[in-house]
């Protein structure tokens, strides 16, 4: 599949002075969660967003998916202001894998994956997927190795299987950009490695831009091309794993002592806690 967006000369996202707070009718003027964030996200790369709890990582991801809109500032997606695009137009280019997938109704894995075709449908809602849609969903399920789970209920599979199915649904959107909120948080080592390898393969083979939020500094170090370190809603540092995972910087942000040495295979930074 040749992707016209891959030849876009600029970055996938450009952010300028993005500020956001969780205001509601009951609690207006809350403190900003993101404060004047300015930066860009390269197309065709894997970016890891790191930072302590409450630093604004997930919030930033939701702003990129247009789930929330900034209080002020602007976000451009491939040069178009995000605020000018409809929810559907964004969903055709950007897919989000949320931290947790809630489901209380008995949908099957195959039905849930097929829901990824929604942004590509036109007209008035009573739309049934055609064979092209099924083929795209089938390909995604093959890629994520969940085809054999197709007829199982979303509520009846393990956390790792459900996470893979949700990524398959995101790929069924045929996005240029894949956003993931802690994709490995609830998974065991084996499944963590699985997901990380799948993401790298999608990135290398198809030029998929990947942006992932993670608490796992070591996984991010191994699998991300670039890292963005957030603290108190501001970007502290952006760069390669070597540039960002420095002991002084991590101690400043996380407020505890850390040890950084090299990974035995790749030599990339490896972060350990002191005794």
């Amino acid at each position, binding site marked *: 599949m040749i992707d016209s967006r891959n030849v876009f000369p600029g970055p996938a996202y450009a952010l300028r002075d993005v500020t956001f707070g969780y205001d509601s009718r009951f609690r207006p003027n809350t403190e900003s969660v993101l404060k004047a964030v300015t930066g860009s996200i390269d197309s065709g790369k894997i970016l890891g967003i790191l930072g302590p709890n409450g630093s604004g990582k997930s919030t930033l991801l939701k702003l990129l998916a247009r789930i929330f809109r900034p209080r002020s500032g602007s976000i451009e997606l491939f040069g178009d202001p995000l605020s000018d695009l409809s929810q559907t137009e964004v969903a055709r280019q950007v897919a989000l894998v949320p931290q947790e997938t809630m489901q*209380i109704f008995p949908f099957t894995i195959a*039905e849930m994956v097929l*829901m990824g075709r*929604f942004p590509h449908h036109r007209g008035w809602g009573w739309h049934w997927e055609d064979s092209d849609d099924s083929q795209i969903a089938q390909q995604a399920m093959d890629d994520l190795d969940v085809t054999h789970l197709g007829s199982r209920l979303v509520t009846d599979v393990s956390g790792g299987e459900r996470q893979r199915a949700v990524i398959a649904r995101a790929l069924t959107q045929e996005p240029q950009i894949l956003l993931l909120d802690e994709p490995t948080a*609830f998974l065991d080592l084996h499944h963590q490695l699985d997901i990380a390898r799948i993401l790298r393969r999608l990135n290398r083979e198809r030029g998929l831009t990947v942006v992932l939020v993670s608490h796992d500094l070591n996984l991010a170090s191994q699998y991300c091309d670039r890292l963005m370190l957030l603290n108190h809603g501001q970007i502290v540092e952006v760069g390669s794993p070597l540039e960002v995972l420095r002991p002084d910087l991590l101690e400043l942000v996380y407020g505890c002592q850390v040890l950084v040495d090299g990974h035995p295979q790749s030599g990339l930074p490896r972060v350990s806690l002191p005794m």
Partner: protein
Amino acid sequence: MGVPCVLSVLALLACLGFGTEPITFSRIWSTLAGALLGTESMPIGTDPTTVILLQVRLPRLILAFFVGASLAMVGVALQALLRNPLADPFIIGISSGAALGAAIALLFGVGVSVLSVSALPVCAFAGALLSLVIMYRISSVGFGFSIYTLLLAGVVLNAIFSAFIMFLTSVADPNRAFGMYAWLMGSLTGPDFSTLGVLALYLGMGLVILATQAQSLNLLTLGEETARSLGVEVERVKKLVFIAAALLTGAVVSFSGIIGFVGLIVPHAVRLVLSADHRLLLPAAGFVGGMFLMLADTVARTVLSPSEFPVGVVTALVGGPVFLYLLTTRNLRVGM
């Protein structure tokens, strides 16, 4: 969809036969065929059996079908919107909101027609919409989303609306108040075909809106944020579904009072047997809900024949235990 449709017609034919005056199947068939095809000239009012069938039982069963179908589909829509399998227009207080609106219309005589359309369903619609909005606000405040918060809020909302209705009935003149009580219990007595026509108009509007949102409802079950990331204009969908649910509930309550639990048990059963996909679930729950209420009403008017009791008694006796069963089993487990 063919199966529930055929079953509904069969249920209708069977229910027509039961009553104080049992009527044989062949008689039902010939009378209906005669009326539909116009082969039998129709001097209605001459033959008592024909009158019972066509002017008493048939309109009542059609009303039961409309009411049951609407309540079941409102249940489906609310459950998706609130992501709560226990949401039912009766349990979470939407029906009593509609009843309050209708009671105000009845007792203050707003019931006179506006542009030849009775103001009663309009007031019931307003009441239903009000309670839906209150309910939605309650369920979206604060952290997390608890199934039980919604139920508790529903109990309280029901109590408040019931208190208002009680107050209104106490100050009203006794003749009107008695009619109010009978109507509040949920009854399907005495519709004529023009009443059914008005009801069909309201239900049609609600149904068309819901039908267009079926796929969006599928995505909303994943949570509002995920639905948004998949391209659903969540705010617009919510507004449309609220209006449709209020239209259906308002119309149903103003014609037949408060009938509970249909919107709870029918969607649950259809999901288990058929699918959770709202493009199938909505119409199938409609047929099954209609069928269920036709049967329930037939029970209500034949068990103590020749006297009868409100159909709401039957639905509560069936639905209440089902509700308790759902509340205590793993069916509420939330997949994470």
